[in-house]
């Protein structure tokens, strides 16, 4: 009997101790993260930012599927370089104005953006960028350069862009474009009125036959 009582007492003491820990140690932490002063300020800032927009040049796949078309669009304002870079890449992932299409595979998510001191931006995507990619060098070039060109064209501090997948660098997305190092922006796949001859031979011989 006395043993059972002693046992019950110990149990009771432990219970009280556990409640004490919850009240004194854990509860302040739970509240601390999102309650006291930070929350209203951040929320207000977020609201202000949600309404603020910047104009940015975004790059979508043309109606004929062959090129990137630069389009001026409104993009949510981001506080600082990294946030603004994220907003721009998110806009590239999002729906394109008809009849254009996004060069990034559906389901791709942006994980993070980093920018180094030399102006190399590292854009980390979810694995759908690779697994849902339709393949082909043209599609791959358009995917890569829609991101590279959108960041380099809109953010002067960004000189080159490297795409990462699931936090790691990748060889390529679909077997062609070298993604081991940051790529500088290139207007080669961006729509321009006349197609200039690409090589001396092309210029010297005959006019392009077109894509039919």
């Amino acid at each position: 009997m006395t043993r059972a009582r002693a046992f019950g007492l110990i149990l009771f003491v432990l219970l009280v101790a556990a409640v004490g820990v919850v009240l004194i140690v854990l509860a302040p932490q739970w509240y601390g993260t999102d309650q006291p002063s930070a929350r209203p300020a951040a929320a207000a800032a977020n609201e202000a930012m949600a309404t603020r927009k910047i104009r940015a040049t975004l790059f979508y796949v043309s109606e004929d599927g062959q090129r990137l078309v630069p389009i001026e669009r409104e993009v949510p304002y981001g506080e600082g370089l990294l946030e603004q870079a994220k907003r721009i890449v998110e806009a590239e992932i999002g729906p394109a104005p008809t009849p254009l299409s996004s060069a990034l595979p559906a389901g791709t998510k942006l994980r993070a953006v980093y920018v180094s001191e030399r102006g190399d931006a590292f854009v980390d995507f979810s694995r759908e960028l690779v697994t849902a990619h339709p393949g082909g060098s043209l599609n791959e070039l358009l995917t890569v350069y829609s991101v590279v060109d959108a960041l380099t064209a809109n953010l002067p501090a960004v000189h080159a862009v490297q795409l990462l997948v699931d936090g790691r660098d990748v060889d390529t997305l679909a077997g062609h474009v070298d993604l081991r190092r940051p790529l500088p922006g290139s207007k080669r796949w961006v729509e321009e009125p006349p197609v200039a001859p690409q090589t001396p031979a092309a210029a010297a011989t005959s006019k392009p036959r077109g894509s039919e």
Partner: protein
Amino acid sequence: MKPISLALAALLFAAAVGVSALVSGQAQTPATTPLVLLSSAGRRALPTTVVNNHEMVALDDLAAAFQLSLRDDALAGGMTVTYKGKTIALMPDQAIASVGGRLVSLPAPVIRDGRRWLVSIDFIPSALALIHDARLDFRRASRLVVIGELRVPRLVVRQEVQGNQVRVTLDASPKTSNTIVQEASRLLVRFDADALDTTIPAVAPHGVVGAIRLTDPGNTIAIVLGPRFGSFRASSVSTDAASTRVIVDLLPAGAPSAPAVPGPQPSQPPQAPAAPAPPELFAPPSTPGVRTVVIDPGHGGAEEGARGPSGSLEKDLTLGVAGKLKAAIENRLGLRALLTRDGDTAVSLDDRAAFANNNRADLFISLHVNASLRKDVTGAEVFYLSPEGYAQARQEAAATASLPTFGGGSREIDLILWEVAQMQHLTQSAALAAVVEEELRAHVPMSGRPVQQAPFRVLVGANMPAILVEMAFLTNAEQEQALSSNEFQNTIAQALVDAIVRFRDAIGRGRPSSSTAPSSRPPGFR
């Protein structure tokens, strides 16, 4: 009382201004162009002022540019300039500076103009350079101050019109390696340097050249091509131990000439007396001719590549054409042809290039089929490597390393980074792409952009002329059907064999076979 004191103050102020104008010298005119400070952080302009025919710079501007701290010594009337604990003392109206106690003379006296201090621009090399951590290289003629160990070769640009063609000569000193690529309507001559010290003369408009300008990232000369431009020839040669001469001949369309192949000089005698003749070819060291061709069937194994609407897979189609091409090269040309894979296996992109390197291939041809989001896109495309993004790696690779030798000691060797081996073959790869495009065009539909440059991984490591051929668009139902047919596959193989023959003959004669211009010097590469 008040009006009087105000008037008095105004009078005093006017007198002070007048006196200071007299003291500081009459004519203070800003210099036409500022000095340019060049460091690893970039370019920065440093405004200057001309006073009594001496070019002066404000100490405040120098302080901002070089992280100097300035202390106006009110008692002595002097100025102390401090940089990391080292000091320079200046006195107004004295043409000297005391650098750590040592006196240095300046060509013009220091000017104190109210709170503004002006010193001769020679203060930079004569005084500041003595206390600054980084090397300061003052290039008076080009109004450039190079800060730190940057490679900024001096580049003299000349243009000569020779009949209907134009020769652009670029003399770089010291010796600087370079690459030439065509990018849309520009020729880019990229020097292996941090910046170029050059003034480019105005170019008279000519049918084949629109303009010549320095372009980003500051180590590249862009020759903007004119409407009549047809092709170019380029050579790069070390004229002596200290300099490199790049000659680019721009030929009009329709001229009997070559695609962008490292050709020798045009046959007419060069009009520039200084032009070295004959220059070395702008080409990597290689043995003449083509003996081994490595064919790379794209994708394989789990990596299926693109997929057609009827389910055809890129990896199967590329393997099919590769087999036919290998047979045609061996049977028709008697050359060695090797495949990077002969079954449905996964081979990494690096291993494919390494396979070609290890087998000492003379040509590398990667076969692919394309895909588009739109079903109606069709046509073949030929790619060679674009150098963007690799410049850095190449620079790092260009450093020499010490290799220990037997018996002690060491010897300097040039490192060629395997990763960027293709960089030295770009001109030839461009030429190969051009002949392949011409041969394909005669037999199969081409895309609107038949020849392109792209940073393709499989090409980067290939230490030989290398191209990637997108034979057709698998996402187009008609082209998918064609790609699966023996007829289309044989046609592609045939066109590639014809192109290899032309390229081989071109190397043998020093230029591709589309050229009819006679060669003035013995054929062959070094």
